[in-house]
């Protein structure tokens, strides 16, 4: 679902956009349409080209890459480098770490965000403004890198999963999106449930959350993508190779000479043989999961952003 569908579900009448404005298209307008089509095609091509290029390189022979002959189509087609990377146990360890970190961090984030958003959505609650303010202020002012590092280190979180999962548990934008959603639910339902003897926890778990599946799914995706893609926290707090997520694996590959020492055995053994292909293969393998789920989840992201914008 993209914008059009979202707007259709929101029930507003189909407004007149560009297409309906003129009674009869003038010549100038037809020229504009043609130019517009060219520009948008260019946007699509430019957006997709890096993906195509990286896939082509990953399937090519190293020699053709170094000679600068690989663009759209692989040359000297082979899967050797894929076999090489997939045979590297460190790659799999790091990939598994990424999955574990993403799952754990997302669960923590969802629980904390849901609880706080639900509390903030209660208009009658005393001190609500202050509670909202505490969260929103952190969007515009943050403690900064050094104090955060000192704090996480002194809490003993270095080289643990908690350094990844906890310090970024609540994203205030997501929090406000969720709060807006909870505010849009009718009060009567919860009041009725309270009359039936459910306490606050029961109302949240049995009434509110079942009605909020869509927004929770959106939030899960927002957080999961953010944690899946994150690298800096791991770079800062994790010193051991077997703890790294796959983003750090890739980062060390591309970091060039200085980083190459840190990479697994494969970079050392095959440095000369396949460095350029190696990078491309790793890029493809780390991007693949995102590309595979993207067509199915994209609409949830769009919905989430719009919810935050229009109602937040």
């Amino acid at each position: 679902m993209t914008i059009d569908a979202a707007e259709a579900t929101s029930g507003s009448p189909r407004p007149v956009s560009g297409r309906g404005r003129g009674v009869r298209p003038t010549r100038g307008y037809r020229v504009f349409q043609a130019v517009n089509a060219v520009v948008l095609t260019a946007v699509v091509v430019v957006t997709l080209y890096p993906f195509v290029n990286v896939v082509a390189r990953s399937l090519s022979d190293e020699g053709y890459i170094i000679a600068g002959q690989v663009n759209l189509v692989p040359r000297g087609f082979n899967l050797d480098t894929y076999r090489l990377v997939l045979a590297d146990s460190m790659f799999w360890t790091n990939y598994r770490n990424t999955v574990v970190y993403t799952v754990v961090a997302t669960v923590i984030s969802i629980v904390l965000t849901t609880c706080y958003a639900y509390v903030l959505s209660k208009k009658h609650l005393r001190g609500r403004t202050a509670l909202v303010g505490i969260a929103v202020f952190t969007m515009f002012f943050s403690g900064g890198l050094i104090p955060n590092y000192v704090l996480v280190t002194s809490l003993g979180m270095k080289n643990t999963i908690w350094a990844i999962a906890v310090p970024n548990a609540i994203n205030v934008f997501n929090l406000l999106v969720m709060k807006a959603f909870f505010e849009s639910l009718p009060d009567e339902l919860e009041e009725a449930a309270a009359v039936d003897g459910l306490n606050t926890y029961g109302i949240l778990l049995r009434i509110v959350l079942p009605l909020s599946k869509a927004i929770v799914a959106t939030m899960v995706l927002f957080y999961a993508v953010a944690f899946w893609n994150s690298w800096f926290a791991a770079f800062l707090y994790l010193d051991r190779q077997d703890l790294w997520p796959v983003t750090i694996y890739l980062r060390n590959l591309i970091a060039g000479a200085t980083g190459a020492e840190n990479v697994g055995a494969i970079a050392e053994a095959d440095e000369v043989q396949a460095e350029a292909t190696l990078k491309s293969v790793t890029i493809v393998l780390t991007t693949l999961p995102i590309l595979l789920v993207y067509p199915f989840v994209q609409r949830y992201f769009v919905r989430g952003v719009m919810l935050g914008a229009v109602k937040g």
Partner: protein
Amino acid sequence: MTSTLRPPPPAPPGASAQARSPVPRSPRRRRSWRQALRRDWQLYSLAVLPLLFFLVFRYLPMIGNVIAFRRFKPSGSIFGEYWVGLRYFRMFFTDPTFWDVFTNTLLLGTLTLLFCFPLPIVLALLLNEVRTRRLKQFVQSVSYLPHFLSIVIVAAMVMQLTSIDGTVNQLVQATGGEAVPFLQRAEWFRTIYVSSEVWQTVGWGTILYLAALTTVDADLYEAARIDGASRWRQTWHVTLPGIRPTMVTLLILNIGTFMAVGFEKILLLYNPLTYPTADVLSTYLFRMGFGSSNFSYAAAIGLFEAVIGLVLVLTANLIARRTVGTSLS
């Protein structure tokens, strides 16, 4: 500050009513804390863990910035050992490197703003003129895609495209030029940085504008057309004013990230050869802190950066409220 973004008028009736008028002061709100606690203790209990999170991981580091004014030992207290006053601030104000990176920060921030703020508006307007819905959706889906990639992947792609054997250099050579190791050249860094930023953000940035465009009143177009306004003038006098609240809000939010320009991406893409144009406050303090273990000095720079960022956002917000009547909160 209860709302991130003001709804573009006319918003759905329920939403605008909620966002615009504060909850009227009912007798309920004036009840004492004790009554509130007795009644709502379960709700408050749900807020305990999140509050703890904000206090420990957001507000404690803010207080932790006192190490900018204190001597700090890595194994000592997280708040430092003893006061040294403004010593570290004096240090960086007299440090020529600091002024270089400060200039770089402003330049990169401005360039990013100049390109990454207006281009999504242009793309949204172009998309809005597409008559084939299928095509529109396809372009949208494709252009959102880069937003979902890790910065590491984007940096890796940039490196490949701009490397000696990459596509960009092949184009250069095909047109008779010499291959350039772009990422080793300081004069190319800003171009590379801003282009990759545009590549990653422009599509996703259209979402809110496209949503706002659908709310522009159809009667206004009708009236403009009767008055003989061309399509271009309709866009200028009806469409753009219609999405102005969204533009202002996003501009303010963009200004909020002005000082922190692309720290992670720069960290991945720069190298000592490109420091003259690529090094910004955040990367400089990163090297000071973790390269030279000078935590207090780095914290002082970080505090300076954060305060300027806050002042920028508040100023932009104030100006927006005074001049166009749109602002955050």
